């Protein structure tokens, strides 16, 4: 799941929205195709966080209401914090939303227990079929049936300001660690900014060193791999960066990363690509609820590269993103499906792509702007991105913030092998429980 959406405030996308508002009107072409059975009803769409840009929201509402006369569409924004808890009760009640976004690693908690309405094979083909991001389709499948479909994907890249980092981007992961440590000045400047609760960024180090999160044995039991040889090697590098390259608080979450970055206190910042809209934003927010960036200083010349792998090339990073599904208890599945069709349409997904997120359809990958190092880094990193273990119980691991807790212990200087062993024990007890 993403937590970083909090970083991106809607208003950050103002620049993009101006151009895209015009394209939004293109959607009007499909008017009147299926207005036959739409009664005077309302479809509620729950989107999470602020990462869906405003023009996509506007496009969805406008297009839907044009195509379905008499029906209205309402978008209600949810927060990533405590989302699993909220859906567990909200989707089982009597007043349920119709279309819901859910973190890709959370989806299985709901697909496995009947929370989402099945997407039939026919509908699946109509919505994009094999063009939909395969890893995300898989994340939304349960027992061979489709329940949740890809919404968008994202990847992490390493951001820096050439004003503060003069070195060439490193070629390998080990070089990256060395450079970050060279840049570090205790209490003043972080080579790599690592808030203690951030576990997403630890995964590439574990994977690149040959470790794994958890794998299923032939008898169905899960074995966690942070204390495997590769896992320990990876976590040791992570702790090395936390202690010898970062001034970030050991207990902090990876939110509002633009604040320390804009203070000029960070060399390398590994973050989801849409953080660019937070950093490269005006110092004076354009809207009331806006958050200041630093477009005139460190944000203006922002560059990025994909985190390098152990043997060069991009590292395997965590594939974040969201799935989208129809609630089982939706009062009006037919209309909800119409909304889903718009969300997965080429037009809507193109708007998503323009903001730097990876669209849900493979064929639209080219829509992500490639004219900056940031756009390139995002797409390159996405190519080798990986997911968390495919089991409904993984959502429980996240709900209990097991990884965050153990990462803070690493940041606090605890023994790596002990932390890894405790972490594995806890993951195994949840996955096999």
């Amino acid at each position, binding site marked *: 799941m993403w937590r970083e959406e909090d970083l991106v405030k809607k208003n950050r996308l103002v620049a993009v929205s101006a151009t895209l508002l015009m394209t939004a009107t293109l959607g009007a072409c499909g008017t009147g195709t299926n207005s036959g059975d739409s009664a005077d009803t309302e479809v509620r769409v729950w989107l999470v966080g602020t990462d869906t840009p405003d023009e996509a929201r506007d496009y969805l509402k406008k297009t839907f209401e044009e195509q379905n006369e008499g029906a209205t569409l309402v978008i209600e924004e949810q927060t990533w914090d405590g989302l699993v808890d909220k859906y567990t009760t909200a989707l089982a009640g009597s007043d349920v939303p119709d279309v819901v976004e859910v973190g890709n690693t959370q989806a299985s908690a709901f697909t496995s227990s009947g929370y989402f309405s099945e997407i039939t094979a026919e509908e699946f083909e109509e919505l994009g079929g094999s063009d939909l991001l395969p890893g995300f389709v898989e994340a939304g499948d349960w027992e061979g049936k489709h329940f949740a479909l890809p919404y968008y994907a994202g990847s992490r890249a390493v951001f820096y300001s050439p004003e503060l980092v003069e070195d060439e981007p490193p070629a390998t992961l080990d070089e990256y660690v060395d450079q970050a440590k060279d840049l570090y000045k205790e209490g003043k400047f972080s080579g790599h900014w690592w808030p203690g609760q951030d576990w997403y960024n630890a995964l590439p180090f574990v994977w690149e060193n040959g470790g794994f999160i958890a794998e299923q044995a032939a008898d169905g039991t899960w074995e966690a791999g942070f204390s495997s040889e590769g896992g320990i090697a990876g976590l040791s590098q992570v702790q090395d960066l936390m202690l010898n390259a970062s001034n970030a608080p050991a*207990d902090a979450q990876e939110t509002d990363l633009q604040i320390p970055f804009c203070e000029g206190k960070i060399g390398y910042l590994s973050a989801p690509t849409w953080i660019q809209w937070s950093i490269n934003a005006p110092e004076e927010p354009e809207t009331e609820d806006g958050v200041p960036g630093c477009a005139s200083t460190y944000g203006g010349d922002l560059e990025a590269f994909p985190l390098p792998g152990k043997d060069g090339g991009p590292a395997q990073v965590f594939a974040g993103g969201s799935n989208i599904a129809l609630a089982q208890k939706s009062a009006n599945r037919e209309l909800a499906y119409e909304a889903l069709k718009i969300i997965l349409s080429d037009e809507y997904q193109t708007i998503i792509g323009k903001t730097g997120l990876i669209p849900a359809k493979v064929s639209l990958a080219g829509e992500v702007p490639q004219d900056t190092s940031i756009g390139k880094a995002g797409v390159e990193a996405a190519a080798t991105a990986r997911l968390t273990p495919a089991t409904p119980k993984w959502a429980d691991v996240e709900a209990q913030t097991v990884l965050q807790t153990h990462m803070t212990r690493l940041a606090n200087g605890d023994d790596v092998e002990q932390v890894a062993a405790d972490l594995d024990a806890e993951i195994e007890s949840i996955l096999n429980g």
Partner: protein
Amino acid sequence: MTLATERAAPAPPAAPPPVRLRRKTPVVPWLLLAGPVLILGVLTGYPVLRMLVMSFQEYERAQVMGLPPEWVGLDNYTKVLGDAEFWEVLGRSIVFMVVAVVLTMVFGTLIALLMMRLRKGLRLLVAVGLLLAWSMPPLSSTTIWGWIFDTEYGLVNNLLTRITGERWFGHSWLLDPIGFFTILTFVIVWGAIPFVAFTMYAGLSQIPGEVLEAAQLDGAGSFQRFRLVMLPYVRTIVTVLVVLSMIWDLKVFPQVYALQDIGGDREKTNTIGVYIYQMGMGQGHFGVASAIAFIFTAIMLLLSVYYVRRTIKEEEL
């Protein structure tokens, strides 16, 4: 209202035999009781019954969505009672509760005594201060306390850096469970004192001045007057306050939950309320969570029943 008139009507005529009257009277209290009983039944009784039933079932997310639950007998209970984590969480909650209740009662009483000695203007000032703390929503106050102890930009680290000359920025207060519970105690006790202080003040100011004066003339010092004269007068109030505080501090939820979000190791700082929430809402194990909740309710009842009964007995002697 119709009941009242009905009852009033037959009273004046003296002629009819009183038999009919006597038969009618019990209806009124029962009817009056019916309202509250109905509301309690719907809002409290049904959920408690449902929870009891669920605690004997395998109840997960799929059952929430309508899959028929399976009866598992005492499985949930044996699972909970055999789980070391449950006992750890319970022990932690009880230790925290004892510390918080003692601090709340001591400081609440001290402030009540202070208010008795203050002149009107100052007393009003204290009362307004207490009311502000009392009316602050727990989530807001916890967030503010979290900011005060923030690792990077917090007031405490800033002050400590200025006073000691050493670098305190980056020191995380919440990461260490002891630090976490110290801050939690601040938040809870700070929020609980006003109620105790006001109630104690109300109680203490009812004690007749002559009694205290007589005690003073007999040579009782101020501490003796407090212990031997004032406390016995307000003993029932103290009992009620202690029992209420115990229950509140045991089942404390939003403050712990929010502080864990700000920073802090969930595994080592869970109290029973948060633990039940995580088991149920967070992980979807509603059966097990219900079992924990039921065990917890039983423990709380035992604690308060024992305490209330003992106090009542003492009073009878």
